[in-house]
């Protein structure tokens, strides 16, 4: 799955009948694996009701197609969940050997750092709030 931010919506009137009643979301991934296209977005069917600016989980491939209940639908990605928060091991996001593609893009607004004493970090309000804008 892909973690990304919803940055827009696609509207279409003339479309494949199997795409009827699906909302299409433009999601900009914070990272993804094995990108098959050299673009920085993916268009996903949204049945969860995400809004622009929210962080979402996107499922790709065949499982993403099943949200429609019909594997013949021309869908290859769908929004699975709206992210409340992302917890990341303390230090990982700033490690010198770029272990984390998040560092080179922008950070989820919901990022919470955990580490030695995860609950302490949360209680202390170490929330990342100044993640860049998409």
């Amino acid at each position, binding site marked *: *799955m*892909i*973690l990304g931010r919803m940055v827009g919506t696609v509207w279409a009137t003339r479309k494949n009948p199997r795409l009827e009643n699906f909302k299409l979301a433009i999601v900009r991934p*914070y*990272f*993804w*694996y*094995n990108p098959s296209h050299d673009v920085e977005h993916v268009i996903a069917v949204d*049945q*969860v*009701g995400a809004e622009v600016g929210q962080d979402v*989980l996107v*499922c*790709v*491939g*065949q*499982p*993403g197609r*099943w*949200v429609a209940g019909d594997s013949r639908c021309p869908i290859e990605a*769908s929004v*699975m*969940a*709206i*992210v*409340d*928060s*992302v*917890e*990341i*091991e303390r230090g*990982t996001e700033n490690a010198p*050997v*770029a*272990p*984390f*593609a*998040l560092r*080179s893009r922008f950070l989820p607004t919901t990022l919470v750092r*955990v580490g030695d004493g*995860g609950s302490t970090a949360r209680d202390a309000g170490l929330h990342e709030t100044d993640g860049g804008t998409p």
Partner: protein
Amino acid sequence: MMLGRVIGEVWATRKNPRIEGRKALLVAALAQDGDRRTPTGEVVVAFDSVGARIGHVVTVTWGSGARAVFSGPDNRWVLVDAAVARIVDAVSVERDGKEVEERED
């Protein structure tokens, strides 16, 4: 499958009912470079099936393999494209023509 290290968790309340109860982990891919293991920069979100925690080295399986991890009578409807399938105890690599085992702490 991919070797990776769990670096975080993703929490979500509003989600598709077919992924209810699954824990989503952030896994950073690792490349075995000789006897060193370095992060490639790729990060994947995968559902946990074995109780992995932050810091664990795990393998991630994709596609229908991930579905098999969560297999059940109606596994066709488990919406998952990546799953943490096992926690790695040790990795054996060949070094100078010999097999060397490296254990995880």
